C-alpha cells in the first residue's frame, strides 16, 4: 500500500520510486539547511490536513496537473491530484533543485509515473 499520510482532507500516497528519490534528494540538502527536511514534512502534512497550500513559494502548478511542493532550500516533491480517486494526492518523486524552473525531464518523469500509477495496481 503506497499510503504515506492519511490527512483530514487528502490522502497522500507515493509511487514506488519516491522513497529512493527522497533519500537521494535529502542527502544533498546542505547540513546548515537540514530543517528543510522537516519543512517538507510540514508542507505534506498540511496539504493532507487542509487540502491545499496557498503560498506560491510552497506549492506551484507546473502545468498538465503536475504540482511541485517546494521548500526554501530547493528540496522539492513533484506530484499530482489523482484523476480517478477523489481526495488523493500522489507524490511522484523528490529532487534537490538548484535551479528555478522545472526541468522537462522532471515533468516527464512525473507524467510517466502518473500514467503508470493511475493505470496500474493502485486503483
Amino acid at each position, binding site marked *: 500500500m503506497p*499510503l*504515506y*499520510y*492519511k490527512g*483530514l482532507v487528502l490522502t*497522500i500516497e507515493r509511487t514506488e520510486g519516491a522513497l529512493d528519490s527522497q533519500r537521494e534528494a535529502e542527502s544533498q540538502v546542505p547540513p546548515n539547511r537540514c*530543517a528543510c527536511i*522537516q*519543512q517538507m*514534512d*510540514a*508542507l*505534506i*502534512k*498540511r496539504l*493532507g*490536513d*487542509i487540502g491545499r*497550500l*496557498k*503560498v506560491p*513559494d*510552497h506549492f506551484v502548478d507546473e502545468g498538465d496537473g503536475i504540482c511541485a511542493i*517546494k*521548500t*526554501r532550500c530547493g528540496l522539492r516533491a513533484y506530484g499530482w491530484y489523482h484523476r480517478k480517486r477523489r481526495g488523493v494526492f500522489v507524490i511522484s518523486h523528490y529532487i534537490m533543485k538548484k535551479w528555478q524552473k522545472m526541468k522537462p525531464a522532471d515533468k516527464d518523469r512525473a507524467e510517466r509515473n502518473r500514467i503508470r500509477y493511475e493505470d496500474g495496481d493502485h486503483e
Partner: protein
Amino acid sequence: MNDSLLEQRINKSDETKRVFAQEELILDIAEAIWAEMEKRNWSKKQLAEALDRTPAYVTQLLNGGRNMTLRTLADVAHALKLKTQFRFCNENNFDHNWSSNGQVYLTKSLRSTHAPITANENWQTLDGVAA
C-alpha cells in the same frame, strides 16, 4: 492505530519533532498571512511596500528563510490592518477548525474572536486562562 510513514518520520526523534514543530508554526503563519493577502488581492510587492521592505524580504518571511520575530509578525498584521491571536494547544489535539488558516489567527478585532473560542480544556489563551 499505527502511525503513517510521514508521522513515523516526524516522530523519529525528539530533535525531528522539535524542528518539525518549528517548521509547522512557520508554515501556519505564512499560510495565514497569504490567506489575508488573497482576501485583499495583495501581491508580495504590495505587502512589501506596506512594510517598507522589498518583495524578496516578504518571500523570505513566507518561506521561512528569514526568522520572523513577533515584532515582524505584529508589523505584518498592522500592515494588513489586523491583529493576531495566539493560543497553545495540546500537541495531540490540534484543532484545525479553530482557524482554517492554522494556529495563529489574524483577525480584524481581537475582541470579536473571543466568542468562537468555546470552553475547551485542551486550549489555553495567551494569558494562561482556559478559554
